């Protein structure tokens, strides 16, 4: 049976998805649900290809890394399969690790322009109605320290806010009461009572 092939192209990067439709699900013949191969071609860089189970983690890695980058967080993503870290503001180091022990990791340096090309290729794949990807929950693949960092801000805010509000309310009420209390007037009242 002829396999279907779809190409997602963005400037210097192109992503090819090869696979078959799931006929048991009454899918069209041009649909791809069973992916057998994928290839990411970047001009002037080595070809990146891998097993189907590697595609979604690699996509997640690029999504998370680019989000960290634009949100002023420390741009660093590490996993068993792929590491991405910033060399400087303009260049990023992508390390693709093989599951075979005798294969050396592939190191690719990419700039911001290539990074956005790659992410946009993945976006096209995600949005394509012709390919059905088995998506994982992104947070499952986020390294633990990174996941903690993402939740830390919200946690700190939630913990600190209630006591601060209560202290401020107390201060506000007690200062307001000092304005109502006039000791001179009270002494005068006492004097009137004694003179009676």
């Amino acid at each position, binding site marked *: 049976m002829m396999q279907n092939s779809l190409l997602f192209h963005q*400037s210097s990067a192109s992503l090819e998805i090869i696979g078959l439709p799931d006929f048991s699900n009454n899918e069209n013949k041009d649909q791809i649900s069973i992916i057998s191969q994928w290839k990411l071609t970047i001009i002037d860089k080595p070809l990146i290809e891998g097993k189907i189970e590697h595609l979604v983690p690699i996509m997640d890695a690029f999504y998370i890394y680019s989000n960290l980058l634009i949100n002023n967080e420390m741009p660093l993503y590490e996993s068993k399969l792929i590491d991405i870290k910033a060399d400087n503001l303009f260049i990023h180091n992508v390390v693709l690790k093989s599951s075979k022990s005798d294969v050396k990791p592939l190191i690719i340096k990419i700039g911001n322009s290539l990074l956005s090309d790659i992410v946009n290729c993945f976006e096209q794949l995600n949005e394509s109605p012709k390919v059905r990807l088995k998506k994982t929950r992104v947070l499952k693949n986020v390294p633990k320290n990174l996941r903690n960092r993402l939740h830390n801000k919200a946690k700190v805010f939630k913990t600190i806010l209630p006591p601060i509000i209560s202290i401020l309310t107390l201060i506000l009420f007690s200062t307001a009461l000092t304005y109502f209390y006039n000791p001179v007037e009270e002494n005068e009242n006492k004097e009137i009572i004694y003179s009676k």
Partner: protein
Amino acid sequence: MELRTITVLTKGNRVSRKSIEKLDLLLLILETIDLNGIQSLYALSNKLDLNDILPNKIAIWKLRNNNPLRRSYMNHNIKSNEFDALIKITVEMSRYLYPYIRNILQSKENSEKSSEVWNDFNNRFTELIYERLNINCMRVKKLLNKNRNDEMLVKSLLTLSLCISNHGYLKLKTFLLNV
């Protein structure tokens, strides 16, 4: 349609002053690339059927004046549908200008010495800042410093280049509301 007004000090699902400031800065960057930016923004609002919210160029200008860094800053209560409309035209314009945005990003990667494309971009951006923003403000002074504004410019260009997909509107909105 539910119309929620945006107040300055609220967060959560409402828009903060910082979000409006960031969105206006992204629009300024797009205007830096497209010399006829204001006209393009208005043309895109027509194309996207946003005439009810953005009927003319002045309406766009008024909304953008909610940026506290603006020379002509006006603290109006910007409605969420107006904010959404501005995001939609930002995403659409980034889509059109993607090759240029990419080229500017690439110009900074290639060599350690300063590139002509980057310098032209930075010069025009600085001119626009002088023209539109309150240059007495410390944050604006930082934007004007050509040695220190690289990071802000690169990250803003990258933000624009990453929101060109069909889900770009949601991506950019999430980014702006989390500022």
